[in-house]
């Protein structure tokens, strides 16, 4: 690694819970090169936000260390190198959108032009509105403008598209692509495989507070992107179905069978060729939770 990298080493963090300590993060090691776009992918409660809070210096790890461009996170933040959009949070009231973004811009050594940040986040048209009169999606975009106006070297986004509709998501990721193209290092947490796949160079899979996989998104997608085929198909032996091309396991409930598939395209062709009587066919992408259960052996 070089000082231009971001390094999370041996991170461990527990919280006090009603039934003893909750181990939110139990040993996370990641090195991110400058300019990379990395998705932290995992189901809810996997430890993504806790990891991000430690990356930003909002939480102190119980064990391990964080280095952002060769500095502790608090120092990188103090130098204005980091911009962030946290998962929860509203905006402070009694200011217009433009005033709020200008207020935040004034805290940074070399901010973007306020109008440019408003434009990038797609909030130029609501710049004169008061921050307490915005919809959820508008609020989210203003928070993005706040993150962008700092013109950071590292942009950290925790579940950034949760409050956005489909159109909003497209606009959001288009903005992020522009930032990435300017060399900004981007780390974002998401529980949407599609988002990680479409946008990140690399995905780090987190489950139960630990990394279960780390690699290019294409590889990760192959690992967790299994699909299932459900069909009504009485009187066919499970073993025979499992022997079909592309099928990795089967399960029967009454007349219905569920085929877990490594390659659902091959499997559906083989299924219909062998058993044309199969009906009520549904093909679905396995949820990330299911994929994680498979990856972590259900533990």
């Amino acid at each position, binding site marked *: 690694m070089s000082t231009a990298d971001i390094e999370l080493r041996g991170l461990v963090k527990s919280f006090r819970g009603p039934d003893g300590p909750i181990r939110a993060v139990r040993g996370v090691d990641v090195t991110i090169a400058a300019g990379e776009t990395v998705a932290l992918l995992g189901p809810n409660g996997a430890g993504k936000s806790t990891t991000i809070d430690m990356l*930003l*210096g*909002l*939480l*102190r790890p119980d064990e391990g260390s964080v280095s952002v461009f060769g500095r502790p996170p608090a120092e990188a*933040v*103090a*130098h*204005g190198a*980091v*911009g*962030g959009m*946290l998962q*929860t*949070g*509203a*905006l*402070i*009231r*009694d*200011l217009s959108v433009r*005033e*709020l973004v*200008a*207020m*935040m811009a*004034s*805290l*940074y*050594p070399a901010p973007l032009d306020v109008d440019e940040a408003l434009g990038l986040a797609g909030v130029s048209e609501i710049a004169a509105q008061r921050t307490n009169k915005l919809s959820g999606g508008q609020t989210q975009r203003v*928070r993005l403008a*706040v993150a962008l106006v*700092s013109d950071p070297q590292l942009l*950290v986004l925790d579940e950034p598209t949760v409050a956005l509709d489909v159109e909003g998501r497209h606009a959001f990721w288009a903005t992020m692509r522009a930032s990435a193209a300017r060399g900004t290092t981007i780390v974002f947490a998401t529980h949407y495989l599609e988002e990680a796949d479409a946008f990140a160079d690399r995905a780090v899979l987190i489950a139960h507070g630990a990394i279960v996989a780390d690699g290019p998104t294409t590889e990760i997608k192959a690992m967790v992107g299994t699909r299932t085929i459900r069909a009504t198909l009485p009187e066919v032996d499970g073993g025979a179905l499992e022997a079909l091309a592309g099928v990795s396991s089967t399960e029967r409930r009454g007349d219905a069978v569920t085929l877990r598939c490594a390659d659902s395209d091959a499997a559906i062709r083989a299924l219909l060729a062998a058993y044309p009587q199969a009906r009520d066919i549904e093909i679905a992408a396995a949820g990330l939770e299911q994929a994680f259960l498979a990856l972590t052996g259900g533990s």
Partner: protein
Amino acid sequence: MPLVYVRYELLRTLRNRRFFLLSLGFPLVLYFVIVSPNRHVHNFDGSGISFPLYYMVGLASFGTMSAMLSCGARIAAERAVGWNRQLRITPLTPRAYFRVKVLTGYMMAVISLLALYAAGVSMGVSLTADEWLRMTGLMLIGLVPFAALGVLLGHLLTPDSIGPAMGGGISLLALLGGTWFPISGHGFLYDVAQLIPSYWLAQASHIAFGEHAWPAKAWIVMAAWTIVLGALAARAYRRDTGRV
């Protein structure tokens, strides 16, 4: 201090209507209600101070205390929406954050003070320029422990609970401070009142006597409250943010 940031923070505070009602409207209305029928009383309850002057300072101490403690309400509101976390990932230092909050508290306190001075003058209060200045100086110094108390409450309480806590707290401090009626020079209440910073805040009106309004005891009480509340506020902040 980040000046543009300060400007917007002040602007934001000036736009908050609820605040204006509590620390400006309420004491002003009370002042006129209480003082109008008694504006010609020159020696109020043996205090040696005229009725309009006594209540001008009493209600100014009420209004300025509310103004300072309302920094706490703003901190609590910002914590509730997660804005303090957003600020912690900017180069704004916690020290600067608190400085700006205290500064906005002082700005509102000065507005409240000037409004009550104007009301007082309209009711016949007449002081020399020197007396006005010394009295104002003492009141501004007397607000320091309340700034620390505001920061402390802002980190201990939620926006839901801070309203009642502040209302009750200010009423009690005002009562013990002699805002509503003079506290006589002996007895248990007097002994307690002398240990409360709001008492000395209201005592700033004694400047009109031509005597020093604050004996050494006042300075010690103020310094002690500032140190204790300041330390508690710093601890509450650290616990709240997990920076132990």
